């Protein structure tokens, strides 16, 4: 376990910034005495309380499986891939949101994309290919994805057209149970 290098931090923050607005700054400096930090263990990045990260230094690298909240992992090509576990961190600071009607919740949680017919509400002025948080109508975060069309274009779309491409959903906690926390 170690802190991130400058290049790694930049890649991570770029990815987070596709989903989050200005609130992302509060992730680093939340104003409390015990701030949160990013730590990398093998290829996975964790968002941890600093005191916990300091305690974890007493555990040797091979024995440490995970700590804090896993945000995602670095691929072999050096890109960063967000995991569903990061939803609790990014959802409160989301820039663009899509609210899914109850009839669209199950198709999304089974790994499907968000169709226009299932959308209850969406954020205005969302450009195409931008990170979007998917929420249920009662504001429970269900996952995140990438907008397929801008809001203006999506309005003209037919009901079966895809509005948001799925990236991760909370159904993965069950579907990927075996591999989600294995490094």
């Amino acid at each position, binding site marked *: 376990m170690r802190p*991130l290098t400058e290049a790694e931090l930049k890649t991570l923050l770029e990815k987070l*910034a596709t989903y989050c607005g200005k609130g992302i700054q509060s992730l680093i400096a939340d104003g409390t005495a015990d701030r949160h930090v990013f730590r990398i263990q093998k290829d996975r990045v964790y968002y941890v309380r600093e005191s916990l990260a300091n305690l974890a230094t007493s555990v040797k690298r091979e024995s440490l499986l995970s700590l804090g909240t896993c945000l995602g992992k670095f691929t072999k090509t050096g890109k960063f891939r967000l995991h569903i576990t990061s939803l609790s961190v990014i959802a409160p600071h989301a820039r663009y949101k899509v609210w899914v009607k109850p009839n669209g919740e199950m198709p999304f949680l089974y790994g499907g994309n968000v169709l226009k017919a299932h959308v209850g509400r969406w954020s205005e002025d969302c450009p195409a290919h*931008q990170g979007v948080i998917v929420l249920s109508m009662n504001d429970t975060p269900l996952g995140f994805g990438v907008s397929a069309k801008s809001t203006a274009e999506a309005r003209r779309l037919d009901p079966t057209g895809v509005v948001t491409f799925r990236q991760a959903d909370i159904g993965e906690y069950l579907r990927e149970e075996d591999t989600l926390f294995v490094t």
Partner: protein
Amino acid sequence: MTPTKSSGSKGKPSGKANSSSKSKPKGSAPTGISKRKAKSLALAKPGGAQKTKSLTSSDTKQKKKRVYTEKELNIPKLNGIIPAGIAKPKGQKKGKVFVDDPESMMAIMSVVQAEKEGHIESKIQKARQWEEVREAKRKEMEKRSEEKKKKFEEKKEALKGKKGKRRHSDRARVAVEEEDEKPKEKKARKRVSFG
């Protein structure tokens, strides 16, 4: 390691100790005298030991070569160039440089955010521009289709009017023709009278 491989037979494990133990008896076998014994014999000879001693001392003097520094050799400077990517200033910390203090993290964050903001802004701007272009195109198409429709209607009206007139004229013409034809027929018709 190569000499041990060549000397050792196939299949047998080759090792340093093994090879040395094998080679020793080979060398001493023909004479039948061990090295130690030979040395002691040479020492026993009058003058023999001294000769060898002087020889060895002269050999070591000759073998000792002077080590030249790069400056002394006058190597052209081109040969000494270190590529820019490899060169590292001395006294620098080895390995990765971590970013863990909130100030530098915030600095990186603000840079990233500004970049992203600009990116999104340009995307939105572009989308709006395209939307405007599309709107203008649509309006033009509508206008054009309306004009076409209008022209069509006009043509239709004109044709309707013409048709009506033609019909009247046709009737008149037919009537005239009929009138023209009638006297001819009258002339041609033969009458028969019984009287």
